[in-house]
C-alpha cells in the first residue's frame, strides 16, 4: 500500500512539472520567439499599416451558443447583423454563423421570431436574413477555416467564403460563453485566444485584411484578444479577466434574457449612426460605462496605428462603395 501511494505521489508530481513546462512552452512559441518578433516588425515596416484607405467591408458574426436558454446570444448576433446591413454591408459580404435553434424552438412563445427587447418592437428573424452557417456547422474548425479561407473550393459556395483582400476592413463579432483565453463553441469544444491570434497572423500574411475590428461579448472577454500579435487589429471586449458579462433584461413572455448588456449599449450607440455619420470609433468606446454594462469593457489599440478619433464608425460597421460616375463619351 505504501508502495502504491509512493508511486501515485511521484506520478502526480511529475504531472505538475510537465504542466507548468508545457504552458510556458506554448507562450514562448507564440510570443517570445525571435522569428515571430522579427516577422512582426518586418510586416509593420513593409506594409503601409492602417493609414491607407480600405476599399470594401466585410463582417463575420458568430453566435457560439446553442440551446434555448442562450437565446440572448443569438439575439446579440442578429442585432449586429441588422446593424451592419442597415449601414450598407450587403449579405454577400456578411458571414453569419448561428446555431439557429431559437426561432422555431418549441419553447418559443412567438414562433418564427427573435427579439432583442422586451417591447418586441423589432423582429430580428425577419424574412430577409441569410444565415451562412447554421446548427452543427458552427464549429471551431469552420470558424478558423472561414477566417483563413482554407476551405474545400469544390464544395464551398462563394457565399460561405470570406473573400477579402488586402483592402478589406473586417468586423468580427463573437458572442457566447467564454473564459480565460477561451470561447466555448456549442458546448462541445473551445477555441483559444492563441488559435484566433494565429489565424489572424495567417490572414495578415496572406493579405486578407486591411483592418480588423474584433468585438467579443462573453465572460472574461478581454482575455481573448490578449494574444493577438498581427498589425491593424482593433479589439474590444466586454469584460476583464475574472469578470463576467451579464444580460441586460429578460422578456417575461419569452421566458429568457433577450440581450446582453455590452451588446445592448453598443446597439444604443449604433442606432444613432447613419451612413454618412461622422461619429468615430473613439466616440463609441467613450460611450462605454462600466456602471451600465456591469463590467469593464476593454479596448486594445496598440496594434492599430490610427488615431481612433479619426476613424469613422462606418469604416467597420458600414460599407464603402467606390462609385464613379461615368463621363459622357461620344456617341459611336
Amino acid at each position, binding site marked *: 500500500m505504501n508502495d502504491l501511494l509512493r508511486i*501515485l505521489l511521484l506520478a502526480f508530481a511529475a504531472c505538475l512539472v510537465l504542466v507548468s513546462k508545457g*504552458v510556458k512552452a506554448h507562450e514562448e512559441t507564440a510570443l517570445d520567439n525571435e522569428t515571430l518578433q522579427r516577422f512582426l516588425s518586418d510586416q509593420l515596416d513593409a506594409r503601409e499599416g492602417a493609414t*491607407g484607405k480600405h*476599399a470594401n467591408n466585410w463582417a463575420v458574426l458568430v453566435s457560439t451558443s446553442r440551446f434555448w436558454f442562450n437565446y440572448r446570444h443569438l439575439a446579440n448576433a442578429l442585432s449586429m447583423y441588422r446593424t451592419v446591413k442597415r449601414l*450598407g454591408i450587403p449579405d454577400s459580404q456578411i458571414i453569419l454563423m448561428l446555431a439557429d435553434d431559437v426561432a422555431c424552438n418549441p419553447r418559443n412563445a412567438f414562433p418564427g421570431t427573435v427579439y432583442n427587447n422586451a417591447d418586441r418592437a423589432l423582429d430580428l428573424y425577419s424574412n430577409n436574413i441569410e444565415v451562412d452557417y447554421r446548427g452543427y456547422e458552427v464549429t471551431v474548425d469552420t470558424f478558423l477555416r472561414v477566417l483563413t479561407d482554407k476551405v474545400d473550393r469544390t464544395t464551398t459556395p462563394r457565399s460561405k467564403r470570406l473573400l477579402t483582400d488586402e483592402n478589406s476592413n473586417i468586423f468580427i463579432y463573437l458572442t457566447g460563453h467564454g473564459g480565460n483565453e477561451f470561447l466555448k463553441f456549442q458546448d462541445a469544444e473551445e477555441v483559444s485566444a492563441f*488559435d484566433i491570434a494565429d489565424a489572424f*497572423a495567417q490572414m495578415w500574411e496572406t493579405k486578407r485584411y486591411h483592418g480588423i475590428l474584433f468585438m467579443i461579448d462573453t465572460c472574461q472577454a478581454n482575455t481573448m484578444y490578449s494574444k493577438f500579435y498581427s498589425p491593424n487589429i482593433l479589439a474590444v471586449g466586454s469584460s476583464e479577466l475574472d469578470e463576467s458579462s451579464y444580460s441586460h433584461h429578460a422578456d417575461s413572455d419569452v421566458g429568457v434574457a433577450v440581450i446582453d448588456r455590452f451588446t445592448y449599449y453598443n446597439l444604443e450607440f449604433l442606432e444613432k449612426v447613419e451612413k454618412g455619420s461622422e461619429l468615430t470609433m473613439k466616440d463609441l468606446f467613450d460611450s462605454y460605462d462600466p456602471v451600465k454594462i456591469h463590467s469593464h469593457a476593454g479596448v486594445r489599440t496598440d496594434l492599430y496605428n490610427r488615431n481612433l478619433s479619426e476613424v469613422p464608425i462606418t469604416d467597420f460597421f458600414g460599407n464603402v462603395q467606390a462609385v464613379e*460616375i461615368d463621363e459622357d463619351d461620344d456617341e459611336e
Partner: protein
Amino acid sequence: MPPSESAEAIVLRRKVVLSFWAVFVFLGLPLWFHTTTIHRTPLPLSAIETLDNELKDGLGLSRDDDPGLHITVGVKRNCLHGTTTLEISEEVQRLVRKEGTSSVFNLELVDAQECSGCSMPKYTLDCITSDRTPLPKTISDVEEISVYIPSNNGSKEIIASGLYDAFVGDFLFFNKHDLGSIDRAISPTTGIASTLYRGATYADAIHLSFTLLIALDSSESERHIEALSPEFQTEWRAHAEKVWNSLKLGELNRFVTSITFDTDVGFQYMTDHNHEWARVEKDGSPDNLSSLLDTWDLQPITLLTTGANSSAVKVLQFVYFLPPYSTNTKSLSFTVGNWGGVVMAGDTPDLPAAMRTFGRQIDKLLSPVSFSLANGSKSRKVLPHGHEFARIATIMNLRGAVETLSALSRLVTSLPEMAVPSTVRDLVDSAITEWHSAVANLHSNFDQAAENRGLYHAAAAAQFARQAVFDKDMMLNMFVPFEHKIAVYLPLLGPVIVPLVAGLRRVVIESRKKEP
C-alpha cells in the same frame, strides 16, 4: 498471509510484466509518437529565399545584356531642329545612368516622318513652344508625349529631360534594386483599378453577369412593359453579342484565361426603393447612388465553378436599371470598383447605347487606367500595349508569387503547430518550376510568343503559390492547454500505468534480493 508464490509463478509473473513493458515501449510509444506528431512536409525554404533575392536583383534583366522590351518613340520634326534622334537618345541614357535608374525596356527614337522599315511607334514626341496645354489624345495605339521647349530650337538636353520625365516614375524606368518603385508605379494603389488589378493578374476566370432591373411598382410604364417583351430580350442578346465578341478578341485574354458571360438576361424586380430613389432623383451624387445600390440585393444569375484548382472566379455585375417613372429621368451610368457597372435608362431607353456603355465600363474596370506615382501624382492613362503589358504583368505575377511563397515560408516557420501536407510541397515545387520558366522567357530578346509564354508561366507560378498557401489541409492544430491534456490522459492512462509500474518495481526488488 497470502500463500507464497511458486517458482514457476514468479517466473511467469516476471515474463508478463516485462511483456507488457515491451509492448508499451516498442509498440505503444512509437505508435503514440507517430499518431500525435504534426505532419510537416519539409518545404524548400532556401529555394524560396533565393527567388526573393533574384527578384530583388532585377531578375538578371538589364538594358545592356538584354534588349528586352522595345519601345519606339516617333520624334516629330519640330523637336529635331539642331539635334538628332541619336543625340536625344544618348542624352536620355545619360540621364538614366546619372539617376541610377535602369529599365527592362529598350528605348528607340525614330524620326516620326521617316520611319521606313521600323515598327509602328507606340509613342510620339511633340515639342511645343507655346504654353498651350495639349489635350492628351490616344489615337488607336499611339500616345502623344508633349515637351515644352523655349524656342523653335530645343536643345537635346531639354528634349531628353522632358522625355525622361515622361517615362521615369512611370512603368518604363525603375530602380533595379528597388522593385518597390515599379510596384508603386505600375500598381494602382487606390480606386477602381487597384481593387481589380490583382484580379487581372491572379484571377483565372472572370464572369460577367448582366441583369435587367425593373422598379416593380412602375410596371404601368410603357418602357417597363416593353422591357418584358420577348422582342426586347432578342434585341438585348443581339447587342450584347457584339460586346462579348469584342472582349473575347481583345487584349483582356492575354492575362485572364477565361471570360464567361451570362447568356440569358436576368430579370430582377425591386420594390423597396422609393426612399433611395427619391434621393437619387434629387441628387445623383456617388453617395446617393451608393445608397441605392445597397437596396439591390443582386445575385449573379450563374455562379461558376471552374474546377478543383480555381482560386477565385471574379464576378462582375452589369445592371440596366429601369427606374420608376419620372418626368426628369436622365440617363446615367456609373461603375463600382470590384462590383461592376450600372446604366440607368432615361425617359427613352436606348439599348444599343447601354450596351456600348457596358463595353466601356468593362474595359475601364479590367484595364489599368492610370497609376499612382511615387510622388503622389497620377501618371497618364496607359492602355495595355501588347507585349509591353505582357512583360509588366509577368513581373507583377512573379512578384506576387514570391511574396506568397515568402509568406508561406514565414507562416510555416513561425507556427510549428501548423500541419504541412505533402500536397503543399508539390504545389510549391510547381510554383518554383513555373517561376524559372517565366524568368527564362523574359530573356527572350523580344520574342512576343515567348513573352506570352512567360506571362502564362508567371501567372501559373502565382496561382500555384496561392493554392499552396490556401491548402485546406494546412490547418493549424488547435491549441490545447497542457493541463487539459493531462486532465484527459491521466484518468485514461493512470489505471493502466500504476499496475505496470508496481509490477516492474517488484521485479526489480526481487532481482536485487537474489544478488548475494
